[in-house]
């Protein structure tokens, strides 16, 4: 990758500036604080807070770059990888009197005024052992008369009442970019024009939404699709590389969170739609207060968005801030990556490519995708087949409500895709469609798996599962359903419901569900539908 969003300090500030979007105010604020100090003013410590990948180091590098070269004073950088120290004096010695016994870096000149750029002051402060040590560090910093410009993951280091740095920093918390800013940054990196062909626009919109406003994810995704010459397959390769590249980013963000926060994120990543607070409580088996508190932490960390339910303003709905997180989590945690990677990639492509692009993919063409797996071959027909289940949802409208995580590799090489629809259709119908698409040999196993309690099955009720199973049978082989009907007692409500639903579906075959039915039939009997 020509742009590495993990190491902004490696880049020339002028290059950084060319892909700086939505940070003009923050940069001006930082610039003003530095220049005021260098011109003889009192040091007003600055803290740039924000989630990982939001652009804190980027901003510091820019601020340093805007200082006049001949009058920068002495600048000391304490990077993110600086070892923490248990004592304030020890840490101070490593900060203030940086000595390089090997002569790799030039010794800083001693000017009267020094600006101290410290990345991760919260981490360094946490590393100090003993209650008094942070206070000692604060004292040493004040005594030095330097201007401290620091970064932290949250502003708690300056706003927590029990923190030694309470009230010591003028704080600016960087937020994720909004959609317009995200689009601008994406274009700046990918080189795409504002007015692009429709398929490029669709792809861009989808990728921007996937990134959820995180500049690091945006830059990575824009790099991934830049100059993709191999059409859709090139995009597939690029997307996989992007997710691989973002592994440390999401991993760090995940591990920064408290245990319950991690559980909530996992549940949200697996769920087919936004979840109500009560559902999150149920799925994480936690109390209302605990979930609410953890959600606030996640919200502050920029990993979760909370919105009011339009039908009931008292109810909160939770969703992932960065839908890309869902794909990372599956990529990292699935135990049978070999058997799921194709459907995973197909779903990711389903988000990014248009229906027409998927449909137009040439089934006879094969492309060796070395990045997916050495020696493996992605067949466009595979993508088409897996994508077909998903095409009923317009790409780029929302992140795809699809869950795929079989607990053990299926005996059939084809993956089981449990395509769960959003709130537009009830869960029974959605499960029926999924089950109808499951190969015959896996049908019973899939029904059993669906019946087991799992965070995936949000509206889990035994009767709904049975209705879904009957519906699926009715959809794929109506004859078998008739046989079953003759065997089951006439008061079997699940069967009655299934039959009634089938009749309704049949009546509405020309209505809004036509496409849905078509897809189900195509998945069940592709030859007939064609």
């Amino acid at each position, binding site marked *: 990758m020509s742009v590495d969003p993990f190491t902004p300090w490696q880049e020339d500030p002028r290059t950084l500036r060319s892909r700086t979007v939505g940070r003009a105010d*923050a940069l001006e604020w930082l610039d003003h604080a530095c220049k005021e100090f260098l011109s003889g003013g009192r040091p007003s410590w600055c*803290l740039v*807070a924000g989630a990982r990948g939001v652009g804190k180091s980027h901003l510091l590098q820019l601020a340093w770059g805007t200082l006049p070269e001949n009058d920068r004073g002495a600048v000391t950088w304490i990077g993110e990888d600086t070892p923490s120290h248990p004592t304030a004096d020890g840490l101070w010695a490593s900060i203030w009197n940086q000595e390089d016994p090997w002569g790799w870096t030039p010794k800083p000149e001693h000017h009267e005024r020094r600006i101290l750029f410290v990345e991760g002051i919260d981490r360094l402060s946490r590393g100090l052992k003993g209650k008094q040590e942070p206070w000692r560090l604060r004292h040493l910093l004040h005594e030095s008369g330097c201007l401290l410009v620091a970064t932290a993951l*949250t*502003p*708690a*280091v*300056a*706003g*927590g*009442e029990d923190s030694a740095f*309470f*009230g*010591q*920093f*003028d*704080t*600016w*918390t960087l*937020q994720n970019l909004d959609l317009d800013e995200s689009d601008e940054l994406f274009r700046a990196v990918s080189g795409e024009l504002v007015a692009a062909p429709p398929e490029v626009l669709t792809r861009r919109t989808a990728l921007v939404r996937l990134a959820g406003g995180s500049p690091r994810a945006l830059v990575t995704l824009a790099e991934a699709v830049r100059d993709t010459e191999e059409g859709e397959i090139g995009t597939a390769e690029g997307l996989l590389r992007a997710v691989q590249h973002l592994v440390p980013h999401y991993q760090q963000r995940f591990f920064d969170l408290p245990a319950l926060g991690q559980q909530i994120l996992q549940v949200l990543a697996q769920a087919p739609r936004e979840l109500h607070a009560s559902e999150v409580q149920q799925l994480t088996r936690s109390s209302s207060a605990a979930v609410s508190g953890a959600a*606030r932490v996640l*919200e*502050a960390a920029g990993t979760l968005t909370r919105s009011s339910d339009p039908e009931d303003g008292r109810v909160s709905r939770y969703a992932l801030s960065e839908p890309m997180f869902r794909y990372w989590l599956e990529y990292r945690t699935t135990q049978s990556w070999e058997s799921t990677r194709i459907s995973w990639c197909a779903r990711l492509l389903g988000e990014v490519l248009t229906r027409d692009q998927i449909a137009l993919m040439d089934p006879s063409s094969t492309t060796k995708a070395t990045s997916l797996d050495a020696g493996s071959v992605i067949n466009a027909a595979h993508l088409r087949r897996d994508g077909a289940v998903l095409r009923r949802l317009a790409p780029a409208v929302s992140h795809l409500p699809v869950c795929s995580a079989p607990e053990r590799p299926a005996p059939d090489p084809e993956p089981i895709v449990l395509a769960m629809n959003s709130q537009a259709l009830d869960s029974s119908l959605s499960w029926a469609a999924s089950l109808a698409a499951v190969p015959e040999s896996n049908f019973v196993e899939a029904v059993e798996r669906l019946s087991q309690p799992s965070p995936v099955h949000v509206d889990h009720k035994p009767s709904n599962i049975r209705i879904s199973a009957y519906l699926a049978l009715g959809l794929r082989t109506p004859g078998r359903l008739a046989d079953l009907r003759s065997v089951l007692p006439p008061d079997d409500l699940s069967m009655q419901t299934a039959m009634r639903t089938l009749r309704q579906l049949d009546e509405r075959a020309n209505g809004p569900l036509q496409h849905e039915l078509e897809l189900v039939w195509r998945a069940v009997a592709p030859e007939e539908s064609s």
Partner: protein
Amino acid sequence: MDFTYLGRDAFDRELLGQIEQTSVLLEGPRGVGKSRVQEHWEQEPPKGWAVLRFDLQGIASAAKLAQQMEEHVVLRRNRIEDWVSTLLEGGWRRSDPWDSLESLLSHRAPQRCLVMFDEIQLYLDGMRRTNPEQARSDLVRLDQLSRHRRSRFVLTGSISLRPIAEQLGYPLGDDWVRIELPPLDTASSEALFQEHCRTACSNVVLRRAASMCGGLPRWIERLARKLTGPASQERTVDDLDRAVELLLVETPFAKELAHLDRHVAAPHLHRALQLAAAEGSNRNAVMAGLQQHLSRSEANRVLDVLQASFLIDAQARIRFPLLGMALRRNNR
């Protein structure tokens, strides 16, 4: 000596000098004595001025406003036989109190008229949320009337009117001068406290009480009444501390903060107050605390609201020590 109007002579002169020139927005924290200034002027009108005062506390609708204004005019006519009584000849139309007021000022007032509205800011702020068109219309009429050559307006309120006017899309011009009613100075505070206490207090107690009440007459009075004990014995600092505890338990400032609950950012406003009340807090601390859930610009707006409500100063410090103590108690 009128102790309820203690220490306001200099301010009276300043205000009188100002209304010769322009209408006035008289603002200040709750309990500082704004309404008392209006009541005082209603009872003892300044020379050369006829006074008409409308109290809008608790008024939340246009109909109530019209009713209140009419009732006040009628009451005033019954109580004092003056020029207002001539009003009824023309009739006061409840459907349009502003029109009636204008008619009164144009044709019937024998001399210059000082029209005073108490807490019209709260009325407009509440109306802005439910019926912004009506709120804007009331503000426009009020502003137009204030330019009447025979009248001056004094609007008092515990929140600032200018931000509300801007939110209504009708920024007030320079012909409204904002004057903040200052808290009582230490000497007046001590004298008022001693007057209401009715038993002897040591100088230390008086100074400490005056300091804790922040010069707000309402709280000086309330605290003094809690300071009880044998009449023969001088009150000590311990007595005062017990009185403060009692006061904070009985009066937890719910009324002073009630208007914040109507604000769309109410949880953040309360959070900001809690942060501001913490020991060693400053603007940086409050901003950092707020930015755990808000952007910097949103956090700034939260502080602006609190500042406009006279609860914090520019450095985000709680302006009123007793309120700070109450908030810290809640924190614990």
